Each structure stands twice: as C-alpha cells, then as structure tokens.
C-alpha cells in the first residue's frame, strides 16, 4: 500500500465509507424497529462524542451534560409547537445549550478536578428541579410536541446521521488543531499550559460550549422523534441525573481522549441499552456498574484501547511469521 493511502485510510476513507454505508442502509428496507434502534444509537453517540471533548480531550469530568440535552430537547419542542421548522429548532437548541454552558462554566471552571465534577452534579440537579416546577414547559408532567407534518421515520434517521457526522468532524478538527493541543496540555498540567501562554479558563469555556451545542442538537433530535419529553421521569427524563451518567459512561466504555473511542462507546451503549431496558428494566444499571469497574481496572483506554491491543498483537504475530 502506498504510504499516502495508508495514512489517509483510517482518517478519511474508512469513516467516509462507513458514512455512505449508513446512508444507504434504509434503502435496503430495514424494519422500522431497526431504524428506530439506529436512530437512538446515533443520538447517544452525538452526546458521547460531545462529552469526550470536555472530559476526554480536556480532562474536565462533568456529570452535568443532561442540562444541555434537556435544554436542547425543550428548546426544539417549544419551537416546533409554536409552528417553527424543526431544523431551525435544532440550531436554536444548539444555541441555547451553548449559552447555558457559559452560565454553568463561568463559575464552575474556577474549580479544579473533583470540585468541578461535584459542582456539575449540583448544577444539573438544580436545573432538573427548576424544570420540574416550571409551569410554561408543563412542569413535571412533561411536554407534548405536536409537529404539523407527516411523520417520516427516514427523515429522522438521516437528520441524526448527519448530526453524528458533524460531531465526528468537529471532534477530528479539534483533535488536529492547535486548540486541541492546548486542551491536551490543560488535561495534563493546567499551570504549565498557562506558563506557555495558554489561557486554560477560556479554552475550557469554549470547548464546553462546543460540546453543549452538539449535546443540545442530540436532545432536540430526541424530542422531535419521541413527541413527548419530561424532565425527570425515571431514566428517560431528559434532565434526569441518569441521563448525565449515561452520557459520561459511553466515552469511558469506548475510550476517552480519542476521536473514535466515544463513537464506538456510543454505538455499543445505544444498542445494548435499548435491548436491555426492554428485557430487564433495572438490570442494565448493575451491568454498567460492573462494566465500568472492569474497564477502569483492566483497560482504562476502553474498547478502543482493547481493539488497538488486539490489532497490535495480530500485527506483531504476522510480522513474526513472515520473518
């Protein structure tokens, strides 16, 4: 293989091929249930990629991403109910979530490490309680979303797929940019980064806003598809603490700090979650707990790390047999 092709293969050609395959998938006549499963998986994957920008690249562990997911969902829901275009609703959802990320980030990014993580728990719970009591959004009883257009499942599928692609592209661009380099430096030693001219506070605020915008779009996609959203009714509530945990879990399962780990984590989580919740309503929590402990103990780089290790073994054994 030519070196140029070998270099481009993992970064552009493979993802592009995957994207095209997923684009053509509905044309082969999948059952609506499978399309639904894929749709939900895409939505989860977007949040997984978004969380990784803050938690993986920058090392700021947030339990509060349900805030952006929920705000995105409610923003799109209210706009659709007011007769607006759902796509305009997605964009506004991103905007509102990004705005909220600044309000949350301005005080909490003054804190470091575990204190930041704890502060995000406080924030997400405060927002959940407020949303459960806010009358104009229907409070704890939730919000029905009425779109005066015919429901076409394929349209939902494509909008989610395009959003995933957008999230992957954003993640790739950040990883390769000097901004991404600064984020990696902040993760390793904030003060040393500052001593070289990086402004850690500002960088965190910006990456948080980008992640919030993507998460807001995911929430909006979810709201439009499910026609009904509520703040905290069990694990399905858009502002529920459990939602924030799920968003954090996926990149950890897949492998934080990489571009493709969170994608992998989101795909696995989305599919497993749907199958499990249907069959065992509470069992999945136990399973995630066990999985999380195993990953942290045995393979901190997640599934991506595991795959890399397996490929490494295969490659080295190939090399041995040739020589």
């Amino acid at each position, binding site marked *: 293989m030519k070196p140029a092709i070998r270099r481009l293969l993992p970064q552009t050609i493979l993802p592009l091929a995957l994207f095209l395959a997923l684009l053509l998938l509905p044309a082969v006549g999948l059952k609506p249930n499978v399309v639904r499963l894929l749709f939900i998986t895409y939505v989860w994957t977007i949040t997984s990629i978004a969380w990784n920008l803050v938690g993986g690249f920058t090392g700021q562990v947030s339990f509060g991403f349900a805030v952006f997911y929920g705000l995105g969902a409610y923003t799109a829901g209210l706009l659709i109910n007011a007769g607006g275009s759902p796509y305009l609703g997605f964009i506004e959802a991103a905007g509102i979530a990004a705005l909220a990320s600044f309000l949350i980030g301005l005080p909490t990014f003054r804190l470091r490490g575990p204190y930041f993580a704890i502060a995000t728990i406080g924030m997400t719970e405060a927002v959940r309680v407020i949303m459960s009591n806010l009358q104009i959004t229907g409070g704890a009883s939730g919000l029905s979303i009425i779109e005066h257009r015919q429901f076409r499942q394929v349209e939902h599928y494509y909008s989610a797929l395009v959003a995933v692609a957008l999230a992957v592209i954003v993640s790739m661009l950040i990883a390769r940019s*000097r901004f991404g*380099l*600064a984020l*990696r*430096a902040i993760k*390793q*030693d904030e*003060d*040393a*980064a*500052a*001593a*070289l*001219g*990086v*402004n*850690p506070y500002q960088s965190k605020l910006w990456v948080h806003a980008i992640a919030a915008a993507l998460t807001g779009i995911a929430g909006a996609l979810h709201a439009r598809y499910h026609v009904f959203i509520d703040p905290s009714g069990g694990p399905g509530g858009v502002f529920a603490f459990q939602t924030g945990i799920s968003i954090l879990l996926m990149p950890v399962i897949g492998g934080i700090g990489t571009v493709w780990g969170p994608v992998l984590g989101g795909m696995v989580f989305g599919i497993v979650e749907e199958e499990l919740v249907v069959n065992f309503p509470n069992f999945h929590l136990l399973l995630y707990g066990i999985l999380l402990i195993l990953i942290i103990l045995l393979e901190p780089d997640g599934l991506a790390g595991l795959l890399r290790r397996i490929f490494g073994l295969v490659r080295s054994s190939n090399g041995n047999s040739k020589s």
Partner: protein
Amino acid sequence: MAILKVNSLTKYFGGVAALKDVSFEIPEKQICGFIGPNGAGKTTLFSLITGAIRPSKGRVELRGRNVTGKSCSSLVKMGVARTHQIVRPFRVMTVLENVQLAVHFGRQGIGRTSHAKERAMEALNLVHLDKKANLLASVLSLGEQKRLEVARALATSPDLLLLDEVCGGLAPAETQAMLDLIQQIRARGTTIMYVEHDMKAVMSVCDRITVLNFGQKLAEGKPDEIQNNEAVIDAYLGKAHLGDER
C-alpha cells in the same frame, strides 16, 4: 533602561510572609542571579512576576507598564516566560508537541502548524534535543527534561526569561552546557533572571546578583561584591567571625 521594576513586592501565605517589601530593577540584556537559602522566597518571587500567584502588596512594572496581578498567559504574550524548578513536561505529548504548543500560544502566536513545527525544531536544536523530537516527553532523562523546559520557555520568544534552578540535579558536564546555553540566550538579546543554588554556576554567569533571606532583600551587587559581603556570609555560613574566637 530597566526592563523590569519591582516595587515593595510582598506575599503572605496565611500569616507567613514568604516575600516582604522586595524592590529591585532588572537592566535589559543582563543575567541577574537570585540566591538565598531554602525558603528565602526565590520561587515565590518568580511566581509573582510571572503571574502564577498574585501579590498581597506591591507593584511589578514591565517596561514602565504596570503588570501587577496579570494572568500567567497574558504575561507570556507580553514577553515574560519561566521554567519550573520541578520540571513539568506534558508527559503524553511528544517533545516536539511540547515545544510546538509554546510557539502557538507564545508571544508571536504562530498559527500555521508547519511554521510552528519549524520554530519548535529551532528551539530544540538550541538545547540539543532535536534528535528526540518525536519521543514522548515522559521517556526523557531529568537532564533532558530540564532542557525541554528551557526550550519550551524559549519557544514563546520572551524578552525576559526566568530560569528556576535549571541546573539542579544535573551532572557537571550538563551544568556547563546549560550555563553556555544561558549565555547564548542572553547574546540573542533576552534578559535573564536566574535562580540557582550552585554558587559556582551563579557566580560564573551572572552580571549582577540579588540575595534574598527570609523573604527580604539582603544584598545586591556584582558577583565579587556579593562574595565578600559579610551579611551574605552570615546568612549562608553562620557568623563570619566564628573562626576568630577560637
């Protein structure tokens, strides 16, 4: 003209004065040494000047401009850079990436990656780490990490470079190479503030020396003046006249 002017700079940690009413001027293009026993306030002084911590009282002026309490990153953009006594490389980045970051976010803020890599390689050349550019910073030896620390600070293109014990823990040959490097940096027009415990090293490269003791300025002058200053000898060796009483 003085590049840096420090006026009655004071820092309390709790009730303890780590630095108390310290004033001095740093003339341009000189190597100014700062010595003193452990806990004299040398590193605190550096942290105050580079904006890593804020002073309790006092004023720092850079080329006549008040920069007291400015953030670390904004001071880097005004041409003030430092190295850390305890090295702080980004361990899971390559040596090149470590320096490249400083080129991107330093005073010149070079955006293009190819250009930034070139500049980073120049800095690595200067400290003889160019052959290790693509290794992870974590595999470097202590001496190499100290040189990486200097290369990173240099890559921000500073006017004023604060070196905090860059020779600490180095072998004699490495120390000499580092001292040569310091003089080379000054020859390029950079003013240097230099903290070191190794007296021979300080005396050999510095144009002027300031002595700190218990957070206060004890003496100031040329290296030979400092060597013969009684107050300094007292602070380092105990009473100077002890020998006479025997």
